[in-house]
Protein backbone atom coordinates (compact mmCIF):
# COMPACT_ATOMS: atom_id res chain seq x y z
CA UNK A 1 0.00 0.00 0.00
CA UNK A 2 1.11 3.51 -0.75
CA UNK A 3 2.61 5.19 2.32
CA UNK A 4 -0.19 7.72 2.61
CA UNK A 5 -3.14 5.45 1.82
CA UNK A 6 -3.47 4.13 5.35
CA UNK A 7 -3.15 7.58 6.81
CA UNK A 8 -5.76 9.08 4.51
CA UNK A 9 -8.12 6.20 5.17
CA UNK A 10 -7.62 6.70 8.89
CA UNK A 11 -8.37 10.42 8.55
CA UNK A 12 -11.54 9.71 6.58
CA UNK A 13 -12.66 7.08 9.06
CA UNK A 14 -12.05 9.42 12.01
CA UNK A 15 -14.02 12.16 10.22
CA UNK A 16 -16.96 9.85 9.54
CA UNK A 17 -17.00 8.66 13.15
CA UNK A 18 -17.01 12.31 14.24
CA UNK A 19 -19.89 13.17 11.91
CA UNK A 20 -21.98 10.19 13.05
CA UNK A 21 -21.20 11.03 16.65
CA UNK A 22 -22.40 14.60 16.10
CA UNK A 23 -25.50 13.49 14.21
CA UNK A 24 -27.44 12.74 17.31
CA UNK A 25 -31.09 12.19 16.69
CA UNK A 26 -32.48 14.20 19.52
CA UNK A 27 -35.86 15.53 20.44
CA UNK A 28 -35.41 18.47 18.09
CA UNK A 29 -36.09 15.68 15.59
CA UNK A 30 -33.85 17.18 13.04
CA UNK A 31 -32.61 15.49 10.93
CA UNK A 32 -34.89 12.65 11.90
CA UNK A 33 -35.46 11.21 8.47
CA UNK A 34 -33.19 8.82 6.58
CA UNK A 35 -32.63 11.24 3.72
CA UNK A 36 -31.39 13.89 6.10
CA UNK A 37 -28.89 11.39 7.45
CA UNK A 38 -27.71 10.48 3.96
CA UNK A 39 -27.17 14.13 3.01
CA UNK A 40 -25.21 14.96 6.13
CA UNK A 41 -23.12 11.81 6.21
CA UNK A 42 -22.22 12.24 2.53
CA UNK A 43 -21.10 15.79 3.11
CA UNK A 44 -19.29 14.58 6.20
CA UNK A 45 -17.37 12.08 4.07
CA UNK A 46 -16.35 14.85 1.67
CA UNK A 47 -15.23 17.02 4.57
CA UNK A 48 -13.30 14.11 6.08
CA UNK A 49 -11.58 13.37 2.77
CA UNK A 50 -10.54 17.00 2.36
CA UNK A 51 -9.27 17.22 5.92
CA UNK A 52 -7.26 14.05 5.75
CA UNK A 53 -5.44 14.78 2.48
CA UNK A 54 -4.35 18.28 3.48
CA UNK A 55 -1.19 17.36 5.38
CA UNK A 56 0.00 14.53 3.09
CA UNK A 57 -0.54 16.92 0.14
CA UNK A 58 1.56 19.60 1.81
CA UNK A 59 4.32 17.11 2.55
CA UNK A 60 4.37 16.11 -1.08
CA UNK A 61 4.63 19.80 -2.00
CA UNK A 62 1.26 19.64 -3.76
CA UNK A 63 0.29 23.13 -2.75
CA UNK A 64 -2.62 23.40 -5.14
CA UNK A 65 -4.35 20.59 -3.23
CA UNK A 66 -4.65 22.91 -0.27
CA UNK A 67 -6.60 25.45 -2.27
CA UNK A 68 -9.35 22.87 -2.48
CA UNK A 69 -9.98 23.54 1.20
CA UNK A 70 -11.10 27.01 0.19
CA UNK A 71 -13.59 25.52 -2.26
CA UNK A 72 -14.80 23.22 0.48
CA UNK A 73 -15.46 26.11 2.83
CA UNK A 74 -17.69 27.66 0.16
CA UNK A 75 -19.44 24.34 -0.29
CA UNK A 76 -20.17 23.99 3.40
CA UNK A 77 -21.50 27.49 3.65
CA UNK A 78 -24.24 26.31 1.32
CA UNK A 79 -25.25 23.79 3.94
CA UNK A 80 -26.20 26.62 6.21
CA UNK A 81 -28.36 28.14 3.48
CA UNK A 82 -29.90 24.77 2.73
CA UNK A 83 -30.84 24.14 6.36
CA UNK A 84 -32.13 27.65 6.80
CA UNK A 85 -34.32 27.45 3.73
CA UNK A 86 -35.76 24.05 4.55
CA UNK A 87 -36.55 24.90 8.14
CA UNK A 88 -37.98 28.32 7.25
CA UNK A 89 -40.33 26.73 4.74
CA UNK A 90 -41.52 24.17 7.27
CA UNK A 91 -42.04 26.92 9.81
CA UNK A 92 -45.41 27.99 8.38
CA UNK A 93 -46.95 24.68 9.29
CA UNK A 94 -45.44 24.42 12.73
CA UNK A 95 -48.04 24.80 15.48
CA UNK A 96 -45.50 26.48 17.72
CA UNK A 97 -42.80 27.81 15.37
CA UNK A 98 -39.11 27.46 16.17
CA UNK A 99 -38.46 31.10 15.39
CA UNK A 100 -35.74 32.42 13.10
CA UNK A 101 -33.12 32.59 15.83
CA UNK A 102 -33.47 28.89 16.54
CA UNK A 103 -33.37 28.06 12.82
CA UNK A 104 -30.26 30.17 12.37
CA UNK A 105 -28.69 28.37 15.32
CA UNK A 106 -29.46 24.93 13.85
CA UNK A 107 -28.17 25.98 10.41
CA UNK A 108 -24.98 27.37 11.90
CA UNK A 109 -24.44 24.17 13.88
CA UNK A 110 -24.75 22.02 10.78
CA UNK A 111 -22.20 24.14 8.95
CA UNK A 112 -19.81 24.14 11.88
CA UNK A 113 -20.05 20.36 12.28
CA UNK A 114 -18.51 19.90 8.84
CA UNK A 115 -15.58 22.10 9.79
CA UNK A 116 -15.17 20.04 12.94
CA UNK A 117 -15.12 16.89 10.84
CA UNK A 118 -12.36 18.46 8.74
CA UNK A 119 -10.45 19.33 11.88
CA UNK A 120 -10.75 15.80 13.27
CA UNK A 121 -9.52 14.32 9.98
CA UNK A 122 -6.70 16.84 9.76
CA UNK A 123 -5.52 16.17 13.30
CA UNK A 124 -5.69 12.40 13.04
CA UNK A 125 -4.02 12.18 9.62
CA UNK A 126 -1.44 14.81 10.65
CA UNK A 127 -0.42 13.01 13.82
CA UNK A 128 -0.40 9.71 11.93
CA UNK A 129 2.03 11.18 9.40
CA UNK A 130 4.39 12.62 12.00
CA UNK A 131 4.19 9.84 14.61
CA UNK A 132 2.40 6.62 13.84
CA UNK A 133 -1.05 5.31 13.02
CA UNK A 134 -1.95 4.45 16.63
CA UNK A 135 -1.22 7.92 17.86
CA UNK A 136 -3.28 9.15 14.88
CA UNK A 137 -6.26 7.05 16.02
CA UNK A 138 -5.87 8.29 19.57
CA UNK A 139 -5.55 11.93 18.47
CA UNK A 140 -8.66 11.57 16.29
CA UNK A 141 -10.74 10.19 19.16
CA UNK A 142 -9.39 12.85 21.47
CA UNK A 143 -10.35 15.62 19.02
CA UNK A 144 -13.86 14.14 18.65
CA UNK A 145 -14.21 14.18 22.42
CA UNK A 146 -12.86 17.72 22.77
CA UNK A 147 -15.00 19.08 19.93
CA UNK A 148 -18.09 17.45 21.43
CA UNK A 149 -17.25 19.03 24.75
CA UNK A 150 -16.51 22.48 23.33
CA UNK A 151 -19.56 22.53 21.08
CA UNK A 152 -21.95 21.54 23.84
CA UNK A 153 -23.27 25.05 24.46
CA UNK A 154 -25.38 26.18 27.38
CA UNK A 155 -28.88 25.20 28.33
CA UNK A 156 -31.54 27.10 30.20
CA UNK A 157 -30.65 25.08 33.32
CA UNK A 158 -27.25 26.77 33.32
CA UNK A 159 -28.60 30.30 33.46
CA UNK A 160 -32.01 30.16 35.16
CA UNK A 161 -34.12 28.56 37.85
CA UNK A 162 -37.63 27.46 36.92
CA UNK A 163 -40.41 27.27 39.49
CA UNK A 164 -44.11 26.66 39.26
CA UNK A 165 -46.25 29.80 39.24
CA UNK A 166 -49.87 30.32 40.15
CA UNK A 167 -52.09 30.57 37.09
CA UNK A 168 -55.07 32.81 37.82
CA UNK A 169 -57.38 35.40 36.32
CA UNK A 170 -57.78 38.99 37.31
CA UNK A 171 -61.12 39.61 35.65
CA UNK A 172 -60.29 38.84 32.03
CA UNK A 173 -56.50 39.00 32.35
CA UNK A 174 -54.67 35.71 32.52
CA UNK A 175 -51.78 35.97 34.96
CA UNK A 176 -48.96 33.85 36.28
CA UNK A 177 -48.21 35.17 39.77
CA UNK A 178 -48.06 38.94 39.12
CA UNK A 179 -47.21 38.81 35.41
CA UNK A 180 -49.94 39.48 32.86
CA UNK A 181 -50.01 36.97 30.01
CA UNK A 182 -53.03 37.95 27.92
CA UNK A 183 -56.65 38.96 27.85
CA UNK A 184 -59.02 36.02 27.51
CA UNK A 185 -62.61 36.85 26.65
CA UNK A 186 -64.42 33.52 26.68
CA UNK A 187 -65.62 32.13 30.01
CA UNK A 188 -65.31 28.53 28.81
CA UNK A 189 -61.69 29.12 27.82
CA UNK A 190 -60.96 30.63 31.22
CA UNK A 191 -62.35 27.59 33.02
CA UNK A 192 -60.33 25.26 30.85
CA UNK A 193 -57.13 27.25 31.27
CA UNK A 194 -57.50 27.19 35.06
CA UNK A 195 -58.20 23.46 35.02
CA UNK A 196 -55.62 22.23 32.52
CA UNK A 197 -53.11 25.02 32.05
CA UNK A 198 -49.73 25.42 33.67
CA UNK A 199 -47.83 28.52 34.67
CA UNK A 200 -44.11 28.63 35.29
CA UNK A 201 -41.80 31.36 36.45
CA UNK A 202 -38.29 31.46 35.03
CA UNK A 203 -35.85 33.31 37.29
CA UNK A 204 -32.64 34.33 35.51
CA UNK A 205 -29.58 33.69 37.70
CA UNK A 206 -27.85 36.98 36.89
CA UNK A 207 -27.96 40.01 34.61
CA UNK A 208 -26.33 38.12 31.73
CA UNK A 209 -29.08 35.52 31.92
CA UNK A 210 -31.68 38.26 32.19
CA UNK A 211 -30.47 39.88 28.99
CA UNK A 212 -30.28 36.54 27.19
CA UNK A 213 -33.77 35.45 28.19
CA UNK A 214 -35.05 38.87 27.19
CA UNK A 215 -34.44 37.89 23.56
CA UNK A 216 -37.69 37.02 21.81
CA UNK A 217 -35.99 34.34 19.71
CA UNK A 218 -34.77 32.61 22.86
CA UNK A 219 -38.26 32.74 24.35
CA UNK A 220 -39.75 31.28 21.18
CA UNK A 221 -37.15 28.49 21.26
CA UNK A 222 -38.19 27.63 24.82
CA UNK A 223 -41.86 27.59 23.84
CA UNK A 224 -41.13 25.41 20.81
CA UNK A 225 -39.08 22.90 22.75
CA UNK A 226 -41.60 22.68 25.58
CA UNK A 227 -44.44 22.16 23.09
CA UNK A 228 -42.48 19.44 21.31
CA UNK A 229 -41.46 17.65 24.49
CA UNK A 230 -44.66 17.71 26.55
CA UNK A 231 -47.13 18.51 23.78
CA UNK A 232 -49.44 21.49 23.57
CA UNK A 233 -53.20 21.44 23.12
CA UNK A 234 -52.94 24.38 20.73
CA UNK A 235 -55.13 23.89 17.68
CA UNK A 236 -55.34 25.97 14.55
CA UNK A 237 -58.10 28.54 14.91
CA UNK A 238 -58.09 28.27 18.73
CA UNK A 239 -55.55 30.86 19.81
CA UNK A 240 -56.62 30.76 23.47
CA UNK A 241 -54.28 27.82 23.99
CA UNK A 242 -51.21 29.45 22.43
CA UNK A 243 -48.23 28.97 24.76
CA UNK A 244 -46.81 32.37 25.68
CA UNK A 245 -44.01 33.96 27.64
CA UNK A 246 -44.10 37.38 29.19
CA UNK A 247 -41.60 39.33 31.25
CA UNK A 248 -41.90 41.04 34.58
CA UNK A 249 -40.38 44.37 33.56
CA UNK A 250 -39.17 45.14 37.08
CA UNK A 251 -37.26 41.98 37.87
CA UNK A 252 -36.66 40.42 34.45
CA UNK A 253 -38.22 37.11 35.46
CA UNK A 254 -40.34 35.42 32.84
CA UNK A 255 -43.74 33.83 33.08
CA UNK A 256 -44.57 30.91 30.82
CA UNK A 257 -48.11 29.78 30.13
CA UNK A 258 -48.91 26.53 28.34
CA UNK A 259 -51.84 24.17 28.00
CA UNK A 260 -49.91 20.89 27.91
CA UNK A 261 -51.26 17.54 26.79
CA UNK A 262 -50.37 16.09 30.17
CA UNK A 263 -50.41 18.35 33.19
CA UNK A 264 -47.11 17.09 34.55
CA UNK A 265 -45.30 20.00 36.18
CA UNK A 266 -41.96 18.25 36.61
CA UNK A 267 -41.79 17.27 32.93
CA UNK A 268 -42.61 20.80 31.77
CA UNK A 269 -39.94 22.25 34.07
CA UNK A 270 -37.38 19.75 32.76
CA UNK A 271 -38.38 20.60 29.18
CA UNK A 272 -37.63 24.28 29.85
CA UNK A 273 -34.30 23.37 31.46
CA UNK A 274 -33.25 21.34 28.43
CA UNK A 275 -33.79 24.12 25.89
CA UNK A 276 -30.47 25.19 24.39
CA UNK A 277 -29.33 28.78 24.74
CA UNK A 278 -29.12 30.23 21.25
CA UNK A 279 -25.82 31.73 20.23
CA UNK A 280 -27.58 34.72 18.73
CA UNK A 281 -29.45 35.40 21.97
CA UNK A 282 -26.46 35.38 24.31
CA UNK A 283 -25.70 38.75 25.80
CA UNK A 284 -23.13 39.44 28.45
CA UNK A 285 -23.56 42.90 29.91
CA UNK A 286 -21.70 41.81 33.05
CA UNK A 287 -18.51 41.42 30.98
CA UNK A 288 -18.41 45.18 30.58
CA UNK A 289 -17.61 47.76 33.22
CA UNK A 290 -20.82 49.67 32.59
CA UNK A 291 -22.90 46.51 32.79
CA UNK A 292 -21.34 45.50 36.11
CA UNK A 293 -21.84 48.95 37.54
CA UNK A 294 -25.45 49.09 36.39
CA UNK A 295 -26.14 45.65 37.87
CA UNK A 296 -25.43 46.52 41.48
Amino acid sequence: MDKYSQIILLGIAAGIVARVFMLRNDYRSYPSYPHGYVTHISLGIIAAALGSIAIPALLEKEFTAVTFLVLAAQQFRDIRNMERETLSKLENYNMVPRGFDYIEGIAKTFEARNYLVMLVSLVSSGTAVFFNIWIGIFAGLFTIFISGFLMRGDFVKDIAIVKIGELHFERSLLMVDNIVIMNVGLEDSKKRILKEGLGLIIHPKNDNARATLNNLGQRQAILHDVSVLVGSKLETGEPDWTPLMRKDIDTGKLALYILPNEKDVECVIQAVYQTPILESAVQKPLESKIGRKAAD
Partner: protein
Amino acid sequence: MEIAVKEQILAVVTVYPEKVQGNFGVFITKNDQESQQLALLLSRILKAMVHNLENGVYIIVKH
Protein backbone atom coordinates in the same frame (compact mmCIF):
# COMPACT_ATOMS: atom_id res chain seq x y z
CA MET B 1 -49.51 31.67 1.00
CA GLU B 2 -52.02 32.65 3.65
CA ILE B 3 -52.90 36.31 3.82
CA ALA B 4 -54.76 37.57 6.87
CA VAL B 5 -55.50 40.86 8.57
CA LYS B 6 -53.66 40.77 11.87
CA GLU B 7 -53.65 42.84 15.04
CA GLN B 8 -56.89 44.53 14.02
CA ILE B 9 -60.41 44.34 15.34
CA LEU B 10 -62.27 42.01 13.01
CA ALA B 11 -65.63 42.15 14.77
CA VAL B 12 -67.29 43.49 17.90
CA VAL B 13 -69.89 41.64 19.95
CA THR B 14 -71.82 43.66 22.50
CA VAL B 15 -75.06 44.22 24.34
CA TYR B 16 -74.34 47.95 24.27
CA PRO B 17 -73.89 49.10 20.65
CA GLU B 18 -73.79 52.72 21.82
CA LYS B 19 -70.36 52.04 23.36
CA VAL B 20 -68.83 51.25 19.98
CA GLN B 21 -68.17 53.79 17.29
CA GLY B 22 -66.35 53.46 14.06
CA ASN B 23 -66.36 51.27 11.05
CA PHE B 24 -66.59 47.83 12.69
CA GLY B 25 -68.79 44.84 12.17
CA VAL B 26 -70.84 45.10 15.38
CA PHE B 27 -72.96 42.15 16.47
CA ILE B 28 -75.63 43.23 18.91
CA THR B 29 -76.82 40.67 21.44
CA LYS B 30 -79.48 40.50 24.15
CA ASN B 31 -77.34 39.41 27.06
CA ASP B 32 -73.83 38.40 28.07
CA GLN B 33 -74.50 34.72 27.54
CA GLU B 34 -75.45 35.32 23.94
CA SER B 35 -72.38 37.53 23.54
CA GLN B 36 -70.16 34.71 24.76
CA GLN B 37 -71.73 32.21 22.40
CA LEU B 38 -71.54 34.55 19.42
CA ALA B 39 -67.98 35.55 20.23
CA LEU B 40 -66.98 31.87 20.43
CA LEU B 41 -68.52 31.15 17.03
CA LEU B 42 -66.90 34.19 15.45
CA SER B 43 -63.52 33.34 16.92
CA ARG B 44 -63.66 29.81 15.51
CA ILE B 45 -64.83 31.04 12.11
CA LEU B 46 -62.25 33.81 11.88
CA LYS B 47 -59.52 31.74 13.61
CA ALA B 48 -59.05 34.65 15.93
CA MET B 49 -59.05 35.43 19.63
CA VAL B 50 -61.85 36.86 21.77
CA HIS B 51 -60.88 39.67 24.11
CA ASN B 52 -63.09 41.04 26.83
CA LEU B 53 -62.99 44.81 27.29
CA GLU B 54 -64.81 44.32 30.61
CA ASN B 55 -67.55 46.81 29.77
CA GLY B 56 -69.84 44.38 28.02
CA VAL B 57 -67.92 44.67 24.76
CA TYR B 58 -66.03 41.73 23.23
CA ILE B 59 -63.64 42.17 20.34
CA ILE B 60 -62.35 39.54 17.94
CA VAL B 61 -58.71 40.03 17.00
CA LYS B 62 -56.39 37.88 14.95
CA HIS B 63 -52.84 37.77 16.30
